[in-house]
């Protein structure tokens, strides 16, 4: 058990928490929040694995990937939020209807 491994486990926990919330919640804004939490969990796992050797300096490649990922995540969130507002404007609901797939 090392310090990066602890954070990797926290990342696993965040991923699972986010996935659970993504499945359970119907409100689209909550689904977007859940996806963001899942993403944070994945980033945490990546960076924790990058620093798995306590003596060597951390691996910069996962760090760069995570920085790219954070910016992509925020742009995807913005697009998802606009889509949610559009769904709301058209249907008047903040959740997708399971019953009528059309």
């Amino acid at each position, binding site marked *: 058990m090392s310090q990066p491994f602890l954070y990797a486990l926290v990342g696993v926990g965040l991923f699972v928490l986010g996935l659970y919330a993504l499945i359970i919640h119907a409100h689209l804004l909550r689904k977007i929040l859940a996806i963001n939490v899942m993403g944070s969990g994945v980033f945490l796992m990546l960076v*924790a*694995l990058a620093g798995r050797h306590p003596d060597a300096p951390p691996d910069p490649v996962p760090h760069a990937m995570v920085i790219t990922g954070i910016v992509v995540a925020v*742009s995807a969130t913005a697009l998802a939020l606009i889509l949610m507002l559009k769904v709301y404007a058209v249907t008047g609901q903040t959740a997708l209807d399971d019953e009528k797939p059309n």
Partner: protein
Amino acid sequence: MSITNPATGKAFRWLVMLLLSAIGGWLAYVMLVLSRSPAGLGDQVAAQLNTTGVGNPVTAVLLNFRGYDTLLEMAVLLIALLGVWSLGGLADYQDTAPGPTLDTLSRVLAPMLIMVAAYLLWVGADAPGGAFQAGSVLGAAGVLLQLAGWRLGDCFSGMLLRVVLISGLGLFILVGAGLLLIGGAFLQYPPALAGGLILLIETAATLTIGATLAALFLGNRPGLGPKKADPEKTEPDHGNQHP
């Protein structure tokens, strides 16, 4: 609590929890195995760092070794903005006049944020920082200005804005193509020029990321929203005019 889907039954919820704990246990096991695997690419990056033109390994990876990733990432930003703009037609935020505190704060903070962004961009070559961090600080400045009621003037929201939005991706591709023309590989900088080229690309990328994030926050295509009267979109590098 009624925040969850009412159609979700209790049995289903237990099933989901069971499956998710299986996924969680499996992921934890994978983490354990991976955390014992030998070193990653850190040594190779360190060995090649003096040919990249920058001293910060993360910047070297982002702009040099994995330049493709950053290039495609700029494309993702642009596509997300195009998606938001093509979906547009949302009402603008209500223009309640900002209080004196927010107004003053935005006037003081925005230039400071722009300076911080420039510092982060410059220092990114050798210390933590770089185009992404600087761009997001610039985007934050844009969001702050929009919250305080500033909108980009008409003369800036047309061609100039679009040039800024596309310059990051465009310059990246131009540099890559130029390197192809002089006989190199795509985005494989000659070590003598690498530092300058990376700084050039990063500057354009910073402006593009900042402008894109600010535009994503506004959500409307400038000048073509449902309310024609509003010249929209703030972009902090040019003179703004107060509505």
